């Protein structure tokens, strides 16, 4: 018996999401069990049934969440500064227009 992780898709084009796992002696029965538990109510359009041993897990925080400033990669790293600079720029532009 081997554990298989089951992923399911709600509708065509949606992300595959983890549903749960089944224990089965072979991939064929694993697919049957997955269908019975995660597709019985027509709630899935596709299932991925994967031997757990085939999944490479990466969860090391040193890799995935290094304590470095990554704000330059994210919108939030710019939004506050943009608001402030925009207000300054608009104020300057308005002043120049009035002075002309």
């Amino acid at each position, binding site marked *: 018996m081997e*554990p298989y992780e089951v992923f399911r898709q709600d509708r065509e084009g949606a992300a595959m999401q983890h549903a749960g*796992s089944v*224990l089965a*002696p072979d991939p064929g*029965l694993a697919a049957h069990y997955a269908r019975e*538990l995660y597709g019985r109510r027509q709630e899935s359009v596709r299932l991925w049934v994967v031997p757990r041993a085939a999944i490479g897990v990466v969860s090391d925080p040193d890799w995935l969440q290094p304590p470095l400033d990554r704000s330059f990669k994210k919108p939030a790293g710019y939004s506050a500064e943009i608001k402030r600079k925009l207000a300054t720029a608009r104020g300057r532009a308005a002043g120049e227009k009035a002075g002309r």
Partner: protein
Amino acid sequence: MTTTLSEPDRVEAFDRHVAAGGKVEAGDWMPDEYRTALRRFVEMHANSELMGVLPEREWILRAPTLRRKLALTAKVQDEVGHAQLLYRIAEDLGKPREEMIADLLAGRTKFHNVFHYPTRSWADVGIIAWLVDAAAIVAQQALRDSSYAPYARTMRKICWEESVHIMHGRDVVLTMMGGTDDQREMVQEALDRWWGPLMQMHGPPTDPRRDRDLAWRIKGKDNDTLRQEFLNVYVPRVREIGLRLPDPELRQDPDTGRWHYTEPDWRELHAVVTGHGPRSAERLAFRRLNWDQTRWVRDTVMAA
């Protein structure tokens, strides 16, 4: 979590992680005490789903219409499916499924009190699907935030299916309430019998500070909070359709919102869940018979 920490430090870091709302996945390190407590909790839940279909199963052949029969059969199938999902989680935590079934069949492990009682009429099917499932979903919704993420994800799926069962039960009850006086009397009689077990179902109040399952966030809410939530939603829904609740003490404090009720019979609860309920022996005997009769299927699958 790094592996360089000493064992007590590691446990302490784990406790802090789950207390702060952190999650645990199947392959993650966890303290043995957490693993055991979690596995016991999920195993009891799985047992209850598996045994819980037996009272309802008795009515499949007596369902009044084909649609009701289909709905009841689907509900029974769902509940067995929940047992499958939950046994999978428990066996992932280290106890083989065969051992869990053997313990259940030998009476060494428990299942919920409400599944130890007889069913007397079709109205029981409505009351069970509506109110027993409603009392259960209050507890199950709180488990969607469990610190053990595979359990929490499974509870999201289970709650979704249970919500259909509650609709089915409410529809059965409302249909009978819209029928004859005899039918209304049947519903009232069923409610009178089920109310005691329903009030016992979440268990006696416990001190939340001494409950490790709560500290580890294996479960989300203490017993009495769950009972209060159930009463809050369902007392009005029961009363609005002309049913009476058989407890003269039942009332809501207008200031605090808390429900007062006659102290449930905790001795009955204890006797029932330790295998001395009116149908405990009969239901376990049926499960044993079923386990023996389906042995050839398991043998065939494993030999293939």
